């Protein structure tokens, strides 16, 4: 309404005001006071005075109510800083601060109060005054600060805010003090708590269960995670622990449910650099309102833990040390020392694996001698591939270096040190650290000890030092045992010959007796006395005597074959034990060997050749004694008797002497028999069943002993085979038969083919076919006159080889007959393949044949079978006319037996069967 008015003076204004008031009153009257607001038709409006008053009053009341309702101390200042209004809080409660006092009422200049605050609080107060001034001067729209100016020492804190009353023009301010003591104390508490947590060396993590996020982490936690606090707080516990969120929730909930702090647990972790650390983890759940906070304390106990582990390791090593030192005192052999040391190392020392290797300077290799926990493949690799040669393949192993450098080699963490040989194998076997210790005797490294622990970082200085001491002790023991062994050697060995002495021999014999007894075997003990030894010793001097004894020892070793069976038991006495006597003849065999070749052996003494004879006494287990001492004593007494009698040897039991002597005698005589032409061939005719004519002859070996006369074959042929004389005798028989056949042709006799028996030994001899060929010589017709008889069982022993040999024989033109057919279980399939000409039916079938229909059927079958295979059939042992008749009926080709003629000497055979082209006997029978 004053918009268009020109400038007016004071009178005008009062005039206008008066007019307005009057108009207002008029309107009031007009409207009975019920109207607040009027406008003219142009929309110009104004409030009636009473409405204006009402509005103003209502605004002031509203503002006052708001200000009074606020829990803050509020004062309104005008542009000069005078208090124009205070709220109720101010009036009632002000008094906690020098800047807050209900005494400061309306009209007081608050700026002056602030600026005149004395002593301790003046700085804060002046700062506040300056802030109020800036807002009053519209230099800033807002000022706020926290302060404590509490003289009561309650430590109350206030937040002071200053806001202008009007937006644009300076027209006073509202100053509000809010009591923030509680909040401040809370913050302080948290800060103090945080500071305390930061001072802790333990890493502390506070996790809010519902959000599963960190609410606080301390410095140590940040260090442990190598993160800034902000970064760490941005992560979730699940990320930091690399554990599934669900698992964590479960464990937190369990913790909350248990209501107690969880028991501290020790956990191994890896640091970023790979080193191992131990931590102790404590957790508890803390409630604040309806929220749960999980407090985790993680303490680095690596140092303590390592100390504990060190103590455990050291005590294990000590246990092992004391075990092995006790062992060293009582141990007698190196083997026991090594194997027991290994056992103690694993059992007392708790090592996973140990091996001990000896240095072999010749081959520059390591020979493992004892181990526990090592697999054979590894040990054989050590033995075969490890070298002590620097630069060689596998020449730079820890073991080789320990030996070369004479000091312990350690690999303390196989998890990170993967260059160790067999790393994977060791690691898979649970080995985490290992060390090699040289075994030093004096200044020589004699071996190496490899120790393998299941823990990493086992071999620290303390352990290495103790173990070095230990290996030194073991090396000392090795040395000691070696010296002891030398002493033992003197106790058990004959120094001159190196053979066992009597003590050792008796011990060994006792062992052999135990084994023979449990195996039900016999055992023979021989005592040998060198004849004329004393004379030799006296005449040639003792060195020559010693040389002879050494030569005899060598000879015996060579001939007996096993030095453990020999001993020198007296000045010129030797002993031999044969622990496995199968037959009595074996007793004689050694004697024979000894006697024959010992007598013939040229011993050289002082550049001259001497032949030494010996006498032997024999005792047999179990016949002559049940224990070594008795046997030895009885052998001694047998030897004594032999020396006084003329006998070259004697057994303790006379009967045995006779038996052995008999065998020896027979053998010797058989040997001589060949030389002296005492063997002869007798011939037995084979006759054709069809014509009754002789068709062949079987040569049979006989021994014409000049002392006892004709010896039956069963008495000497087994011995020929046992002694191998069969080769020589067989060769002789073959030659004789071929010669006889040639002779018959030569002198115009009827030349019958001669069958010669072949023994198994002959056939097995690979040179047999060549021998036959040689025996046939250049005579083109010789082969036609020769037939070789082999028993069925001999052929079947090695069918493939037999077939090959027989083919070769057939290729020479020589016939082949299968002897004793029917006793050797031939299979028909082989029979068809055998390159033979003739089957000879065994005499037992011929006898059975006449006994009943079954026997007859069997022979009939054999004959038919043979004929179908294009073989001719000879029946052996035919003694009766009945047998002959049946065989003829069965279409058998030939017969042989007493019915037609016994084996007779050649001359007789020639006269009886070969003269005049027709056999005289045969004609008479048909």
């Amino acid at each position, binding site marked *: 309404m004053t918009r268009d008015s020109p400038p007016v003076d004071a009178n005008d204004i009062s005039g206008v005001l008066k007019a307005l008031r009057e108009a207002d009153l008029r309107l009031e009257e007009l*409207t*009975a*006071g*019920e*109207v*607040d*607001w*009027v*406008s*003219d*038709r142009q*929309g110009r*409006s104004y*409030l009636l005075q*009473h*409405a204006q008053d*009402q*509005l103003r009053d*209502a*605004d002031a009341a509203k503002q006052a109510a708001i200000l009074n309702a606020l829990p803050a101390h509020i004062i309104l200042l005008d542009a000069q800083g005078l208090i124009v209004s205070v709220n109720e809080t101010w009036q009632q409660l002000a008094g906690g601060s020098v800047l807050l006092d209900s005494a400061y009422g309306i009209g007081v200049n608050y700026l002056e109060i602030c600026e005149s605050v004395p002593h301790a609080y003046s700085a804060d107060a002046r700062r506040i005054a300056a802030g109020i001034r800036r807002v009053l001067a519209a230099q800033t729209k807002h000022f706020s600060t926290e302060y404590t100016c509490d003289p009561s020492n309650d430590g109350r804190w206030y937040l002071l805010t200053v806001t202008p009353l009007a937006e644009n023009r300076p027209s006073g301010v509202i100053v509000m003090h809010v009591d923030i003591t509680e909040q401040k104390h809370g913050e302080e508490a948290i800060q103090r708590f945080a500071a305390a947590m930061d001072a802790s060396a333990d890493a502390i993590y506070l996790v809010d269960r519902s959000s599963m996020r960190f609410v606080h982490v301390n410095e140590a936690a940040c260090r442990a995670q190598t993160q800034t606090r902000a970064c760490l707080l941005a992560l979730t516990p699940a990320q930091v622990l690399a554990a599934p969120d669900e698992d964590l929730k479960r464990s937190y909930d369990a913790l909350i449910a248990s209501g107690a702090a969880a028991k501290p647990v020790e956990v191994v972790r890896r640091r970023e650099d790979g080193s191992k650390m131990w931590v102790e983890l404590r957790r508890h759940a803390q409630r604040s309102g309806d929220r749960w906070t999980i407090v985790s304390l993680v303490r680095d106990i690596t140092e303590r833990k390592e100390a504990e582990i060190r103590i455990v390791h050291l005590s294990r090593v000590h246990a092992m040390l004391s075990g092995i030192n006790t062992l060293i005192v009582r141990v007698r052999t190196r083997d026991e020392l090594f194997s027991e040391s290994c056992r103690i190392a694993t059992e007392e020392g708790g090592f996973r694996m140990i091996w001990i290797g000896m240095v072999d300077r010749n081959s520059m290799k390591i020979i493992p001698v004892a181990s526990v926990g090592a697999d054979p493949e590894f040990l054989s690799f050590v033995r075969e591939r490890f070298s002590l040669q620097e630069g060689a393949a596998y020449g730079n192993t820890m073991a080789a270096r320990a030996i070369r450098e004479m000091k312990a080699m350690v690999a303390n963490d196989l998890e990170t040190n993967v260059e160790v040989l067999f790393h994977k194998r060791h690691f898979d076997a649970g080995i985490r650290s290992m060390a090699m210790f040289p075994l030093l005797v004096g200044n020589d490294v004699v071996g190496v000890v490899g120790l393998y622990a299941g823990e990493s970082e086992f071999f620290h200085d303390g352990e290495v030092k103790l173990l070095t001491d230990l290996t030194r002790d073991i090396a000392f023991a090795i040395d000691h045992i070696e010296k002891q062994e030398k002493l033992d050697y003197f106790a058990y060995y004959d120094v001159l010959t190196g053979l066992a002495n009597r003590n050792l021999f008796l011990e060994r014999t006792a062992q052999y007796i135990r084994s023979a007894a449990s195996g039900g075997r016999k055992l023979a003990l021989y005592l040998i006395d060198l004849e004329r030894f004393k004379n030799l010793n006296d005449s040639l001097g003792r060195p020559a005597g010693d040389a002879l004894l050494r030569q005899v020892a060598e000879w015996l070793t060579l001939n007996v074959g096993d030095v453990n069976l020999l001993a020198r038991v007296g000045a010129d006495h030797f002993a031999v034990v044969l622990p496995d006597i199968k037959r009595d003849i074996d007793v004689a065999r050694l004697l024979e060997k000894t006697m024959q070749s010992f007598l013939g052996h040229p011993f050289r003494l002082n550049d001259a050749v001497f032949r030494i004879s010996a006498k032997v006494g024999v005792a047999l287990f179990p016949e002559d004694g049940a224990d070594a001492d008795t046997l030895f004593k009885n052998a001694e007494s047998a030897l004594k008797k032999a020396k006084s009698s003329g006998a070259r040897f004697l057994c303790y039991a006379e009967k045995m002497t006779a038996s052995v002597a008999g065998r020896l005698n027979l053998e010797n005589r058989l040997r001589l028999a060949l030389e002296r032409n005492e063997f002869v061939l007798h011939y037995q005719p084979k006759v054709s069943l069809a014509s009754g004519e002789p068709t062949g002859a079987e040569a049979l070996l006989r021994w014409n002993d000049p002392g006892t006369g004709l010896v039956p074959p069963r008495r000497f042929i087994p011995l020929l085979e046992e002694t191998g004389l069969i080769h020589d005798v067989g060769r002789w028989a073959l030659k004789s038969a071929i010669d006889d056949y040639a002779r018959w042709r030569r002198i115009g006799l009827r030349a019958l083919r001669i069958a010669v028996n072949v023994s198994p030994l002959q056939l097995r001899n690979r040179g047999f076919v060549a021998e036959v060929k040689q025996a046939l010589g250049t005579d083109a017709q010789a082969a036609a006159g020769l037939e070789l008889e082999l028993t069925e069982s001999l052929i079947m022993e090695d069918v493939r080889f037999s077939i090959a040999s027989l083919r070769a024989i057939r290729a020479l033109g020589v016939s082949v007959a299968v002897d004793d057919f029917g006793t050797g279980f031939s299979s028909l399939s082989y029979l068809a393949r055998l390159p033979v000409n003739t089957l000879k039916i065994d005499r037992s079938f011929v006898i059975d044949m006449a006994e009943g229909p079954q026997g007859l059927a069997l022979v009939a079958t054999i004959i038919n079978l043979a004929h179908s295979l294009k073989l001719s059939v000879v029946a052996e042992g035919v003694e009766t006319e009945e047998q002959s008749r049946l065989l003829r009926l069965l279409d058998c080709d030939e017969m042989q037996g007493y019915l037609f003629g016994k084996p007779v000497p050649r001359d007789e055979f020639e006269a009886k069967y070969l003269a005049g082209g027709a056999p005289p006997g045969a004609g008479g029978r048909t």
Partner: protein
Amino acid sequence: MTGRSKFAFRLFVASGTINSAEAIANLNALCRKHLAGRHEIEVVDVFREPQRALAEQIHMTPTLLKLAPFPAARIVGTLSQTRRVLETLGLAAADSA
């Protein structure tokens, strides 16, 4: 009878003034008593919507307009004289009967 028809009022007020506040209170009381369930009241603050006051040729507050039922009526004042108001609104007969 008009007793069943719907009443529509528009009350122009000057917010914050005591007469206007009384008018609102009186109108509400009157409607609750005599027009329960069949009235609509729109309150227009002339300070906020001066153009509507001008358009309706309202030159004083509080002013009540009866928009329906016919005929329209206009009352200025605090509506404290109930009988007069009811008469003006055509409700006096019903009331007296």
